[in-house]
């Protein structure tokens, strides 16, 4: 069971993380039935406070909240008072006054979610839906859920699994959250990127680091491709798209080196032809669509535990009853 806020994977114990995955599983089973909607959060209001455009994450949270019968308010910074210079504090206090029970925040500033939780601006439960280049905890949870669904049974953690994360680690909140969560759950993680896209200080992370993708492919169970932002090229993080794609892209030749059981992941949206070829994205090994589907279950689980207050799995051990 988690309580309070969900700001960072670092705040979760292994038991809490597994508990969330188990809650998500139970909710998935229920919502796969004829009636997708649960009455659990009736009367609660969830605000999607998005300072950056992210239609995918927003509609995933929106779907999750609506399946739990919460009222959903979408607050997009673009075209609102925020674009006229309103501060985060004033926005938060406005939402407080309107009685938001949970605020799902996506913000370009690392730590923005934690600031909302730490200050007295607002008392709602804060859910970090991506803060700058820091973390994106629900993405890591849905990724762990997806890996578990494909490669592990219900009662197990991810021990023994080899995960390779490829791409712009430096600017990736998905990578930071996944490193923390997947290693917490027992997986061994290798980061692959050109040195320009690895943070100084990565040596302190509980991971392996490699500059070369090819030698890792035959061994790994999961290969997770990160989206590469085209503006990184202008800042000389790599010379050209073509060179990046040649050295770090998942093309069909690299895909063929993977074990038959291995899975290919991508947090989306994909740049087909850049970090991942169309063949790889559409291959049977690709679980990208499962990730999207599981995202709804995970976000339901997070909202359920933070706002519902009743544990589906009081043992916290992630076992199905």
């Amino acid at each position, binding site marked *: 069971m988690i309580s309070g806020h969900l700001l960072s994977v670092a705040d979760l114990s292994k038991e809490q993380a597994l508990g969330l995955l188990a809650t998500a599983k139970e909710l998935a089973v229920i919502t796969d039935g004829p009636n997708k909607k649960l009455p659990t959060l009736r009367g609660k209001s969830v605000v999607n406070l998005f300072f950056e455009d992210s239609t995918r994450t927003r509609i995933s949270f929106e779907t999750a909240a609506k399946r739990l019968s919460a009222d959903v308010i979408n607050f997009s910074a673009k075209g609102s008072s925020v674009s006229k210079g309103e*501060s985060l504090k004033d926005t938060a206090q406005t939402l407080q006054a309107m009685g938001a029970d949970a605020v799902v925040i996506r913000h*370009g500033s690392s730590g*923005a979610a934690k600031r909302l939780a*730490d200050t007295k601006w607002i008392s709602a439960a804060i859910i970090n839906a991506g803060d*700058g280049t820091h973390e994106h905890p629900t993405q890591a949870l849905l990724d762990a859920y997806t890996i578990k669904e494909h490669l592990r049974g219900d009662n197990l953690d991810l021990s023994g699994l080899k995960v390779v994360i490829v791409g712009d680690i430096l600017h990736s909140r998905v990578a*930071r959250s996944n490193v923390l969560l997947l290693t917490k759950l027992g997986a061994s993680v290798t980061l692959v990127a050109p040195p320009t896209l690895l943070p*100084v*200080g*990565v040596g*302190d992370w509980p991971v392996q680091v490699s500059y070369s993708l090819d030698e890792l492919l035959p061994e790994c169970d999961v290969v997770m491709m990160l989206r590469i932002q085209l503006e990184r090229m202008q800042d000389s993080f790599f010379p050209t798209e073509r060179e990046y794609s040649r050295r770090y892209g998942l093309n069909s030749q690299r895909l063929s080196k993977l074990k038959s059981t291995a899975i290919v992941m991508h947090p989306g949206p994909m740049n087909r032809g850049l970090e991942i070829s169309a063949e790889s994205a559409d291959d049977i090994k690709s679980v990208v669509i499962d990730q999207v589907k599981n995202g709804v279950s995970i976000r339901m689980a997070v909202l359920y535990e933070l706002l519902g207050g009743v544990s589906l799995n009081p043992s916290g051990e992630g076992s199905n009853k």
Partner: protein
Amino acid sequence: MILNNAQTASGKSISIKIENGVIKDVSDTNIDGGVDVGSKLILPGLVDLHTHLREPGKEDAETVETGSRAATIGGYTAISAMANTNPVADTAGVVEQVYRLGKSAGLCEVKPIGAVTKGLNGQQLAELGAMADSIAQVRVFSDDGKCVSDPLLMRRALEYVKTFNGVIAQHAQDPKLTVNAQMNEGSVSARIGLVGWPAVAEEAIIARDILLADHVGSRLHICHVTTAGGVALIKWAKERGIQVTAEVTPHHLLLTDELVENYDPIYKVNPPLRTEKDVWALREALASGIIDIVATDHAPHPSEDKDCEWQAAAFGMVGLETSLSVVVKAMIETKLMDWQLLVEAMSIKPAQIAGYDQQGRGIEKGAPANFILVDPGAKWQVRRDRLNSKSKNTPFEGMELPALITDVYFNGVQTVNNGALTGNRAGE
């Protein structure tokens, strides 16, 4: 006025007689008719070479008057108003305005620092000579807040100020290596996802400017050194007789980048808080004299500039009122320094570097009566709502600090009594 039973920094018990703003007499024995100060330490008034007073232009953050009050409570009898005001202090007119505001506040000497380049734009020299010749008699020039990054312009500035024995105080920060930088680049920045401000961006400029100062035979002062690597470069330069001096801030002597972990912008400062290893290198460098002085980099900001998310927040911390106590905690409680070395680093040497001839003279016959009394055994707790500065952005909130400044005398006028401003001001 006569004060009996004061302890000097070197441990001598003395009595002093003040007349007409000057220390008229210093005696080993009590002088009749004096006030017993109860063995408090008597130190020359502190001198700050790095103070942001925000006036003109940002009077909601600080004014010369409120900054002078904060300085006085903090034991300073001279402060140096940085040039990054609005308008920038890049003409005789602006530095004279700041100088006059300081005079009319009458609490401490307010010495304007002139901008090196016009509008701090880093492209064209400001009228350095006119500022030197003005009634403000500017000798220290700095684009602080910004680096004079153009090497040719830096060379010219270093050469030009030799005419009037000026010094260029460099804010060492390579702008290209610190685009959008938020905190020290290292383990913590990697973990919490803030854009890194690498040590090399500071050290590359220090190295370059040391070589330039050597080449043209000029005086260079490095503002707020923060890295172990910077210390090594300054040591190298001093061993070769290059005319370089350097300052460290109290906050860089005490705080590390681990504090940024909670994203509270109260810890957002430029240059950024560094690592434990850097903190110890800075402390040792200050103790050994590689770093010459402590300077506050007092940087007031209104609350809205800190009560926000990290990236939106302003860089800077107030420091005048906590400076002495923080240095005592970092340097004396750790036994790295004694009171005499502290006096050199916070009063004597800064006055020498900047050429403030009424300051840092020690407690001696004939010196201007600029001194403070300190209870070294007292502890006090920092409370932001009790600060005299108009801005409350202290990173030391709630911290218990050693050494309490009880009395301050400026030109013979008692400006602080029992830790509170008396309301007295020194006239012309």
